C-alpha cells in the first residue's frame, strides 16, 4: 500500500521542483549538479512512496537534497562550470537588488552546512527545528550555523562598503 499515489507524486513535482532546484543551485552554483540533485531527490521519493506521505514529501525532498549535496556532489565538484545565479533568475520575477546579488555571490564562500541552513531558512522559511530535522543537527547547532553565515555575509558587505569608501 502506497502512502503517496502517482497523482500526489506529480503534484510534488509541480509544487517543489522549482524550490528544490533553487535550493540546490544556490548551494552548488552549478546547473548540471543541481539538476542531478533534484533528479536524485525525486527518484528517492518515488522509491519511498510506500513510507513517505504527501504531507511530508517536501521536507523529505530537502533532506535528501541536503545530504546528497553534502555527501556526494561536494566530493566531485569541479571549479569549472560555475554559473551565476542571476543568469537563471526569471527576468519577469523580482529584480535583483545589488546587495542581494552580492550576498548570493558571497554564499559560495561559506561552508556547505552554513550555506544550506541559511538557504532553508531564508528561501523556504523553515523553522530552526525543521532545519534541524532536515540536516540532522540540533536546533542550537542550526542557529549557530545561521548566525555565523549571516555574520560572514554582513562582513562581506562591510568590506565592499569600505572599498567603495576608499575609491576617490
Amino acid at each position, binding site marked *: 500500500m502506497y502512502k503517496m499515489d*502517482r497523482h500526489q*507524486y*506529480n503534484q510534488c*513535482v*509541480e509544487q517543489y*521542483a*522549482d524550490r*528544490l*532546484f*533553487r535550493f540546490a*543551485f*544556490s548551494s552548488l552554483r552549478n546547473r*548540471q549538479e543541481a*539538476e*542531478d540533485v*533534484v*533528479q*536524485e531527490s*525525486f*527518484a*528517492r521519493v*518515488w522509491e519511498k512512496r510506500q513510507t513517505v506521505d504527501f504531507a511530508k514529501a517536501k521536507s523529505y525532498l530537502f533532506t535528501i537534497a541536503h545530504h*546528497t549535496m553534502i555527501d*556526494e556532489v561536494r566530493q*566531485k565538484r*569541479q571549479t*569549472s*562550470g560555475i554559473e551565476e*545565479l*542571476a543568469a*537563471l*533568475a*526569471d527576468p*519577469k*520575477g*523580482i529584480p*535583483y*537588488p545589488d*546587495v*542581494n546579488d552580492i*550576498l*548570493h555571490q558571497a*554564499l559560495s564562500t561559506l561552508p556547505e552546512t552554513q550555506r544550506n541552513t*541559511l*538557504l532553508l531558512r*531564508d*528561501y523556504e522559511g523553515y523553522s530552526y527545528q525543521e532545519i534541524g530535522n532536515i540536516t540532522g543537527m540540533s*536546533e*542550537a*547547532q542550526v*542557529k*549557530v550555523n*545561521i*548566525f*555565523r553565515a*549571516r*555574520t560572514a*555575509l*554582513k562582513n562581506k*558587505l562591510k568590506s565592499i562598503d569600505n572599498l567603495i569608501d576608499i575609491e576617490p
Partner: protein
Amino acid sequence: MNTNINSDNYEAYLLDYMEGNLSPDETKQLKAFVATQGLDWEELTEELPHLKAPQIVFQDKDRLKSKSLSLPKDRSNNKPVLVPLYAKIASAAAAAGLLLTIGLWPEKSMPEINPVAELKPIEAHLTVDETTPCLVPRRTVQMATTPSVQNEPKDYRAPQTEVESVAILSPLKSQSVSIPNDADDLLVSDLTLLRYRMETRQAFVYLPEALSYEKEMPSSLIGKGIYWMTEGRLCTLGDLLNAGLHLAKQEVVRATTDVAMTAYYRAEEQIEETREYWQEKYRE
C-alpha cells in the same frame, strides 16, 4: 534562571536575542558572557542580512513525473528515463572502462590471441551463454576478484584446436556486489578483468553479455553502466560510446574527448577489419 551559555552556543543565543526571543534575564546573562569573552556586544548585534529568494524555474519537470520513472518494458519506448545519480556514476565507469579497454590499453601489452569463432553482429537482444561461441578462450583457473596483471601470462591460456566458449562476465556473476557501496572495488575489478582478458577486438564480445538484462541486471559495474546508458536500445559500439560519453559528461568527457573520438574511429576500423577477416575466412 541559568541559561548555561557557553562558547559553543552563545551565537545561538545571539540569534535568539536579535529575533526578540530572549527574556530580559537571558539577555543579561548573554551580555555578561560576551563581556567575559572580550567580544564587542555592539558589533555582534548589528543588523544581519537576509537573502531574498530569486525566481528560478526547473525546466524539465515532465522528466521527473512518475510516468517516466519506471524502466521501459518495451525496448522501442524511447521516452527519457529518470536516471539516479549512482547510475550516472556507473555509466561514467562504464564509459571509462570501455575507453580504457578500447582506446587506451596498449595492444602490445596484451597476449596475442587468434580469433577462434565467428564474430557475431552486436545486437541488443543477443545473449551469451556457455554454448555461444565467442572470441574469448575459456580460462582454466577460477578468476580472482582482482587478478594481478603480473600473473597475466601464466594464467592466460591460448585457444586450443577446437572452438571454446565462455561468457566474459561469468566470473563477476559469482560476486555479490552492490552500487554504490562497492562501486570503487567493483570498478577496479571490472577494469582489471577487461585489461586482463580482452584485447580490442574481444571487447565486442563483452557487449552482448552486458546487454542481456532481460534475464537479470548485469552484475558488474560496467554492465550496469551500459544498461543505464542505453536502456536496452544499444545496437553498436558507436552508440555505446556516444551514450556513455553523453551521460558521463563532466566525469569523463572533458578529459577524454580526443581519446573518445580516437577510440570511436579505431573501434569502427576494428569492426570492419574483423568483419572482412571472417568473411574471407568463411569464403575459404
